[in-house]
């Protein structure tokens, strides 16, 4: 029974989101803190270093951490305001249970645990172990990610565990494994500095990874040409040497056409291809018909610009290609990624100084969180849960029989579909807000309403947790020690600054207690986070993501260690592939042929406009944290429908007219923002909000067949002007998600 017990408005009254501001003179003790704790920002995979001011076991403010080498004090607005998630009036300070008609009422930890364990037992006895699923998230540290994986397999004994990385960069991970046998960006950011050409494909770098902008400009100061592929003129695209305004969903056509130009003009590295790769001929054959005229027609980009991009890339001596969700959130996300890798391999520009390639992972621990086993198909060290050797190794580390480890389960969206079908009856979630973040979220909400038992671990009552039977108050980033792995593959240390407030507990303590009550306590005898990390090191040993040689001490001493780091005397690996050997047995990297495919949903006469979604600089993902921080809300208070003036005129739309956007899945109404910085055939809505303001009511749930990532970035819509103007944003309170 996971319907809302009372109206959303009444829940919001008690649990927020409420906007939290710093008092006029700062928090008490901000001028004379007891200590400054060196840690990292909790938002995004740049993981900027920051110092938190602590006074009387409370966070009182921040001070830039100038010495941390990646950001040297630089921060984005989310980083500056991150400390306001502390001392927050919405913070969950005790366990709650759902009471029909009354809302959520406090219960004791013992009762919350007892009820949860008894419901797990009941559901698993009645419907089987796999009928109880778990959804996790990669804002969790490596230690917690590892523990969740072990918990679900050994304590909950379910195969159905997956995570919100499934809607982040899994297409990149799958593509990298197909091409290199390993999933990590090839170089540290330092190698951007002297790249002659940089391609950024589908990444709004200056809003999603603002501090990376500095590195792009460093390269440009050294003469780099910047090419940005994006349907919108984002702030990073605005100053690019070349902006390729790709039609959403046509990325592999663009990169296929570029590969053809490289081949036709002989701008390829024959020696590298011959000695260090396989499959070039098939990849070239797949794009032989992708001439410039076809590419212009398919991608919507002028052919001169495509040729210019191919020429710059082809003739450069050094280069770096970066991509992110813009090319990954597609039913052909893996194809898009492989089409990028093909042009990198064709020119042999990898494994050398200032030559690199990689995805810009999105979430705080998007890299480490996808390596250590809370994915449905994975065991720690980025091992394959279906591989008998990998299973045997992990079974030994865990001290269990191999057969006790469940097999591959369903991916995140498939778990929601299975709940909707009635096959999965119970759920634990931690650090995941799928009712805001998954596509076609009316369907997702319906699924949650069908659950027989749902327990949510979180620090705020997010929109999904409003459907929970029991809520367990967990810990914020700064309330538990651990490590995360940044987008450049650098393992860094998260230091505990304060204790969880009230009755809130560390996430790991919650997992350990549940494991104990489920009879698996002996597998979770961890004294502290370092003990978890030390087990993770052993579990990852020999895997592609090998952390064995990394220790807490080594991380702190070196301000991070880049994996792979297979032994204690190993310095870590900022640059991969210097030996020109991939992780495959033959040591060769693999081209993969990419034939262009259309998106799952293309425009037609009924749904004539392309809809794409993305982020704004002041919000982070589903907004659980950032929609509670006053200044971040005020900066961009509600989602706007970005629309080109030439499209607006067809519908007689003016600024702030309320426009209903309808797709085959649902409809929602947004104020229009008329801008020339978007393709005329495409509208854009940012997705951070829930309820009636949620863009994901409209997006499509079709998945990439390999990565199982949903196609957030393209679907077909209708625009229906309502004839009304939007009230001022501050009166609409979109941040509350009612």
């Amino acid at each position: 029974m996971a319907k809302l017990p009372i109206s959303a408005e009444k829940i919001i009254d008690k649990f927020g989101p409420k906007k939290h501001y710093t008092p006029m003179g700062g928090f008490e003790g901000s001028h004379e803190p007891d200590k400054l704790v060196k840690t990292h920002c909790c938002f995004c995979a740049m993981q900027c270093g920051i110092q938190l001011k602590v006074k009387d076991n409370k966070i009182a403010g921040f001070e830039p951490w100038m010495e941390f080498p990646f950001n040297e004090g630089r921060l984005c607005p989310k980083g500056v305001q991150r400390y306001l998630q502390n001392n927050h009036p919405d913070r969950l300070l005790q366990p709650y249970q759902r009471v029909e008609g009354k809302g959520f009422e406090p219960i004791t930890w013992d009762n919350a645990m007892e009820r949860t364990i008894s419901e797990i037992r009941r559901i698993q006895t009645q419907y089987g172990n796999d009928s109880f699923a778990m959804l996790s998230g990669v804002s969790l540290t490596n230690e917690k990610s590892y523990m969740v994986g072990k918990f679900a397999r050994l304590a909950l004994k379910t195969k159905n565990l997956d995570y919100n990385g499934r809607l982040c960069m899994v297409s990149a991970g799958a593509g990298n494994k197909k091409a290199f046998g390993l999933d990590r960006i090839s170089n540290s950011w330092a190698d951007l500095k002297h790249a002659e050409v940089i391609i950024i494909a589908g990444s709004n770098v200056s809003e999603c990874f603002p501090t990376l902008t500095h590195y792009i400009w460093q390269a440009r100061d050294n003469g780099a040409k910047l090419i940005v592929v994006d349907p919108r003129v984002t702030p990073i695209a605005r100053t690019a040497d070349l902006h390729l305004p790709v039609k959403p969903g046509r990325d592999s056509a663009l990169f296929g056409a570029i590969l053809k130009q490289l081949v036709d003009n002989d701008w390829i590295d024959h020696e590298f291809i011959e000695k260090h790769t396989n499959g070039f001929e098939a990849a070239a054959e797949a794009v032989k018909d992708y001439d410039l005229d076809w590419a212009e027609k398919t991608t919507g980009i002028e052919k001169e610009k495509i040729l210019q991009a191919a020429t710059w890339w082809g003739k450069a001596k050094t280069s770096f290609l970066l991509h992110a969700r813009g090319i990954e959130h597609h039913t052909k996300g893996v194809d898009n990624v492989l089409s990028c890798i093909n042009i990198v391999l064709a020119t042999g520009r990898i494994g050398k100084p200032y030559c690199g390639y990689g995805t810009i992972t999105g979430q705080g621990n998007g890299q480490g969180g996808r390596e250590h086993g809370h994915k449905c198909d994975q065991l720690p060290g980025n091992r394959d849960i279906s591989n008998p050797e990998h299973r045997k190794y992990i079974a030994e580390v865990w001290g269990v029989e191999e057969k006790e480890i469940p097999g591959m389960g369903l991916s995140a969206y498939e778990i929601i579909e299975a709940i909707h079908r009635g096959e999965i009856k119970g759920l634990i979630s931690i650090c995941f807000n799928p009712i805001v973040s998954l596509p076609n979220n009316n369907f997702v909400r319906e699924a949650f309403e069908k659950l027989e038992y749902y327990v949510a671990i979180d620090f705020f009552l997010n929109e999904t947790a409003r459907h929970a039977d029991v809520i367990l108050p967990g810990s914020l980033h700064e309330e538990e020690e651990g490590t995360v792995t940044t987008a450049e593959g650098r393992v860094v240390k998260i230091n505990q600054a304060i204790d969880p407030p009230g009755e809130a507990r560390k996430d790991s303590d919650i997992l350990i207690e549940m494991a104990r009550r489920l009879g698996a306590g002996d597998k979770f005898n961890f004294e502290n986070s370092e003990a978890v990390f030390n087990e993770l090191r052993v579990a990852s040993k020999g895997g592609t993501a090998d952390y064995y040689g990394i220790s807490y001490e080594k991380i702190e001493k070196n301000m991070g260690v880049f994996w792979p780091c297979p032994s204690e005397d190993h310095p870590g690996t900022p640059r991969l592939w210097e030996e020109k050997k991939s992780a495959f047995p033959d040591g060769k990297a693999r081209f993969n042929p990419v034939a262009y495919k259309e998106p799952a949903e293309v425009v037609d006469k009924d749904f004539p406009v392309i809809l794409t979604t993305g982020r704004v600089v002041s919000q982070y993902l589903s907004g659980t944290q950032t929609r509670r921080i006053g200044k971040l809300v005020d900066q961009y208070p509600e989602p706007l429908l970005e629309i080109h003036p030439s499209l607006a005129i067809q519908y007689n739309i003016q600024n702030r007219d309320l426009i209903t956007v309808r797709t085959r899945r649902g409809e929602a109404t947004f104020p229009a923002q008329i801008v020339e910085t978007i393709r005329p055939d495409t509208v854009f809505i940012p997705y951070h909000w829930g309820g009636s303001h949620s863009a994901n009511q409209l997006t499509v749930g079709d998945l990439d067949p390999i990565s199982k990532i949903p196609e957030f970035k393209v679907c077909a819509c209708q625009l229906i002007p309502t004839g009304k103007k939007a009230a001022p944003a501050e009166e609409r309170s979109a941040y509350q998600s009612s």
Partner: protein
Amino acid sequence: MTVTKYDQQMGFFIDMQRCIGCHACEMACAECETNGQESMIHIHYVERAVSTQTTVQVCMHCEDPACANVCPADAISKDEFGVVHTAETSRCIGCSNCVLACPFGVPQKQEKAELMMKCNMCYDRTSAGKKPMCATVCPSGALFFGTREEIELKRPDSVPVDTFIFGNQEVKTKVKIMMPKGSNYLKVH
């Protein structure tokens, strides 16, 4: 306030082209204990309908500051390091002369407090050898605090400019803006 090591070699440079409109500078500025959560730096879209270009508006610390010259209460002063300080609260009469006189439109009158407030180059930080908050956090390099030699070396395609011509008036500033190489001044028509 004890001035320990205000380094006059250090300068403040603005490169509008690099501004990504993220507002980190505003939020960091407001953290300063003397600002009471008000930012002394402001980011605006030039014309959002046509571009994502944003601009930075902050005190330019003029060599001959019009704001100080027109202040009837002598509340605004320029110190030996060239920093033009915000109006002294005990003197400021809230007349807004400075607001009207500033060629860059920087000072703002805080209506609630009946006081003019503006950037004082993070004096508490810069006089202790730190960078101003805004230039510390700026993620794109649109704001830079360092020596002229350092920025010229790092950014060979642009040059710092400190001369602004408004009609017949020439204004020289402590804060410099980065312009294409070969530029000597910015003329505002």
